[in-house]
């Protein structure tokens, strides 16, 4: 066992916990991350018109957000998830997987917002009345 080298392989601990390099590196990194987040939050987000449900990468169904409805998602002969659309928002209320991450997620209503159930490979995504934002850029 060599001594404890807080700063890589060549600098022995000097008692100073944060050095100049660290401050510069972290500042640049945090600015980049904040810029990415700013882009995410400032992007104009229109309310979506419908949700698209895909299972295993294939489209399962497209449902209007302005109609109140409950959509059981059935794959491989069992009901895996229950999607409820109410007051213009889509929310996953039931799932048969143990971790229930998708159930704990907030209801979605804005364009491109997504609920994912990883174990059942279910993706619910809000789409607009016309293709807009990220989609038109991507194409």
């Amino acid at each position, binding site marked *: *066992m060599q001594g*404890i*080298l*807080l*700063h*890589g*392989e*060549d*600098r022995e*601990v000097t008692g100073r*916990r*944060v*050095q100049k*390099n*660290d401050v510069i*590196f*972290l500042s640049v*990194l*945090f600015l980049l*991350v*904040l810029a*990415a*987040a700013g*882009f*995410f939050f400032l992007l104009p987000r229109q309310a979506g018109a419908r949700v698209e449900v*895909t299972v*295993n*990468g294939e489209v399962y169904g497209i449902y209007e957000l302005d109609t109140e409805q409950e959509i059981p998602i059935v794959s491989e002969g069992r009901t895996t998830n229950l999607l409820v659309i109410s007051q213009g928002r889509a929310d996953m209320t039931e799932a048969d*997987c*143990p*971790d229930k*991450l*998708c159930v*704990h*997620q*907030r209801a979605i209503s804005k364009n*491109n*917002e*997504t609920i*994912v159930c*990883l*174990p059942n*490979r*279910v*993706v619910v*995504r809000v789409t607009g009345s016309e293709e807009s934002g*990220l989609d038109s850029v991507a194409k």
Partner: protein
Amino acid sequence: MRNKVAYLGVFLALALVCSYVESLIPFCFGIPGVKLGLTNLVVVFLLYCAGTREALAVQTARIVLAGFLFGNLFSILYSLAGGLLSFLVMWLVRRAGRFGVLPVSVCGGLAHNVGQILVAMFVVESYQLIYYLPVLLVAGAVTGLLIGAAAQEMILRLGGRLR
């Protein structure tokens, strides 16, 4: 370090306890995948005080064991992608020799979330998930900084006793 295997076993147990404690905290911001990453504390500590191979062994073993204990096959796959990418990046940043514990831990936090979202995109075959990457990056950077600060104190105060 004498009795290396015994020591690593104790650290593995500590990492598993951290996983368990973390699963008890309802740390939920409406976006899946955002969590504190307490176990990374143990991994960063070992990376500095026990060595790369030892830290990697504990990291891999704790992901597989925690998956069997508290999760399922999917959470193992998910965590392995995040955990191993995170370990690789932390190792590289540390090897660069210019940076301290905080940058190492922050880069680990970022890489962990990038790895997880890549696997999620692959599993559900939906590239729209990249939409959540900015939020996950912010979360990874903040938790990485907190864990890094805690790990640094552990290394300074306890690291010397490991020899």
